[in-house]
């Protein structure tokens, strides 16, 4: 059994320690939802922080917040999921290479390497244990969770620090906006579901979790399982995978009280998400949340933070949109995420 015993989230919402659970919602009016940064020097030695790029500072800070929340000082493993790693550093190198790049600045090159986040966390904690990084679009965080559950099952770890992290930059948004699935202009995030401007709203964030083999007084929820499905051929196939996944974990669709929806504002894919849930989970209440964090490869980390919080507090924050109505009980939550309807991922959390 795996439990979520600590969470550290840096997101476009006030999710740092000491804030109310997603209330009130933070409003954004820019081109994408930018994370609310903590005071990094609270968590990182200022001398070390000077050369670190923003993503790495976010990763280390949320990892430390998570450990503090769990009340532990040393994890038995560190695993990070990131779709793109440090976009800012990658862009710096690409810009230099465009000119020539014979004398590249080595720091962005080092930091653009995806495993920098996990390894910088290990350096900050002096943790010599198992350390890995998954970099597969919307499977990135889910792969970390699968690995964490394996480590606990093997008996090789009691507390695994696992998280998902991605950042957005204006240059990157300019590039991906060419693909026709992102909003081409800024909107107010809280208007996402009524906006007439087509496309997904981009976001970013970091969410680390202490996945533990034992329940304790800090436990948020039980992390039952995660599943990834590549290129299902139809809505029916995706729905059948959901049913198989639930059954494989001893549950049926009636047991799922809430589904954290994969909707991101891109109509064509949102309707697929709705159809999958209508087919596989007709009785479950649906939660829309991406108006709070935006769309990014590891956005399911924000969803897991939300789901775990709901299960622990037995309360759904008013900033979330629940359809058709809040459920009578809050016992089992399924998180659905997808990357352009090609990669579909699911996380099952229980009270």
């Amino acid at each position: 059994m795996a439990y979520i015993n600590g969470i550290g989230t840096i997101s476009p919402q006030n999710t740092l320690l000491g804030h109310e659970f997603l209330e009130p919602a933070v409003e954004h009016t820019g081109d994408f939802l930018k994370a609310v940064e903590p005071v990094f020097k609270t968590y990182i030695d200022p001398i070390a922080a000077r050369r670190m790029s923003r993503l790495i500072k976010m990763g280390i800070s949320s990892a430390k917040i998570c450990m503090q929340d769990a009340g532990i000082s040393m994890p038995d493993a560190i695993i990070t999921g990131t779709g793109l790693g440090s976009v800012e550093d990658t862009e710096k190198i690409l810009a230099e290479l465009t000119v020539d790049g014979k004398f590249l600045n080595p720091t962005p090159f080092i930091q653009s390497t995806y495993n920098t986040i996990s390894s910088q966390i290990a350096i900050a904690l002096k943790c010599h244990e198992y350390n890995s990084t998954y970099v597969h679009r919307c499977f990135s965080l889910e792969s970390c969770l699968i690995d964490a559950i394996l480590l606990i099952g093997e008996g090789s770890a009691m507390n695994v620090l696992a998280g998902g992290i991605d950042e957005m930059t204006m240059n990157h948004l300019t590039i991906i906006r060419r693909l026709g699935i992102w909003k081409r202009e800024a909107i107010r995030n809280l208007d996402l579901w009524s906006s007439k401007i087509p496309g997904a709203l981009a976001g970013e964030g970091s969410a680390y979790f202490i996945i533990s083999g034992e329940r304790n007084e800090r436990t948020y929820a039980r992390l039952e399982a995660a599943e990834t499905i590549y290129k299902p051929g139809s809505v029916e196939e995706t729905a059948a995978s959901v049913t198989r996944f639930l059954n494989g974990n001893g549950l049926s669709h009636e047991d799922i009280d809430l589904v954290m929806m994969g909707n991101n504002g891109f109509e064509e894919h949102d309707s697929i998400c709705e159809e999958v849930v209508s087919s596989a989970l007709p009785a479950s209440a649906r939660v829309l949340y991406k108006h709070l964090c935006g769309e990014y490869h590891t956005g399911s980390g924000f969803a897991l933070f939300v789901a775990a919080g709901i299960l622990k507090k037995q309360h759904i924050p008013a900033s979330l949109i629940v359809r058709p109505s809040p459920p009578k009980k809050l016992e089992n939550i399924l998180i659905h995420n997808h990357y352009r309807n090609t990669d579909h991922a699911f996380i099952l959390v229980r009270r």
Partner: protein
Amino acid sequence: MPSRIFVTGLGLISGPGNNVQDNLDSLLNLRSAVGPLRYIETSLKDELCVSEIPMSKEELLEYAGLSGNEACSRNSLLGMIAAREAYLHAHLNENHGLRLGLISGTTVGGMDECEKYYQDFLTNDSRNEFIDIYDCADSTEKIAEYLGLKGFMTTISTACSSAANSILFAARMMKAGKLDCAIAGGTESLTKFHLNGFNALKILDKQPCRPFDATRNGINLGEGAAYLVLETEEINKKTGNKIICELIGYGNACEAFHQTASSPDGTGAYLAMKKALDMSGEQPGNIGYINAHGTGTDNNDLSEGRAIENLFKGKVPYVSSTKPFTGHMTSAAGSAEAIISILALQNGIVWPNMNFTTPMPELNFRPVAELIRGLDLRVVMTNSFGFGGNDSSLIFKKYGIY
């Protein structure tokens, strides 16, 4: 719970050869692929010494049967070619209904195209089909599509130990009963991005590299892809595949020392090897050969050498780095060198550490300088260490000996 993991398929493309057999021939004939850069445009072109696969992108597309499919990175193409060899070797095309996973390591991904078109990406729509192919997952999904795989897949990036971590994660998924078999390894093509990047770190040797040599002066980068097919013992009874060898140990540890440097005493390397050895149940004396990470940098070889001495005390097995043959294949090095180690095991041969002349004063052992034949090798170890201190070690054993 299944506990034994067998290797039943191999696929490798690298500078020295387009498949496993060609690589074996090159190794036996001491043919290195290290030389001047030909296919990547960079102003460093005349200064670098690399191991390149002697095919242009168009030639690789043709070789993979994908001519005209421009929106495919060199990285993905190499991955597809090597994964296909392993897939066919293990007759996976004839075995249906298996829970087959694909776990692939890569780091620089499809940067070869992205670095050419980045200005277009920023300013116009002319190269939009290349936007999606630069991230790490693209090569894994391209391989899946090429081979018609629909099962579990993921991509690992732990720099130069990516492929080793893919292999050990695949084995763990199988032992946990989540997969019956897996194609696991890694791919990395040369790009201006990492040629110039490594050059900026001042760790590239302009001469052929000399791992574990007192005169060593850095890395020769290489490119390629390599995949192993792993099967559980139970599934092997169904597939009837010939067992090449058994994966009996693996270890993953972190240096937690510095982003790009190894600790002088090789803490991470020691821990990774120790974990693998403990899991294997073998005595240190049973390890017949270590295919070292041996990059040829001052730092790695000293750190790894000391870790080997600490673990094996006075009885260091045969050690060599085969990077002077293949160059440092970075994200693919772990699986490429796993295959090179398995070839040693199969043939009773220890590969020479080419270009070695002068022992390192800090170490009490020397790498193997000449090819040695006719050995009764039973167990081999291979090391992969990455930036960020991501260190992993794998141990393979001949099948059928106890």
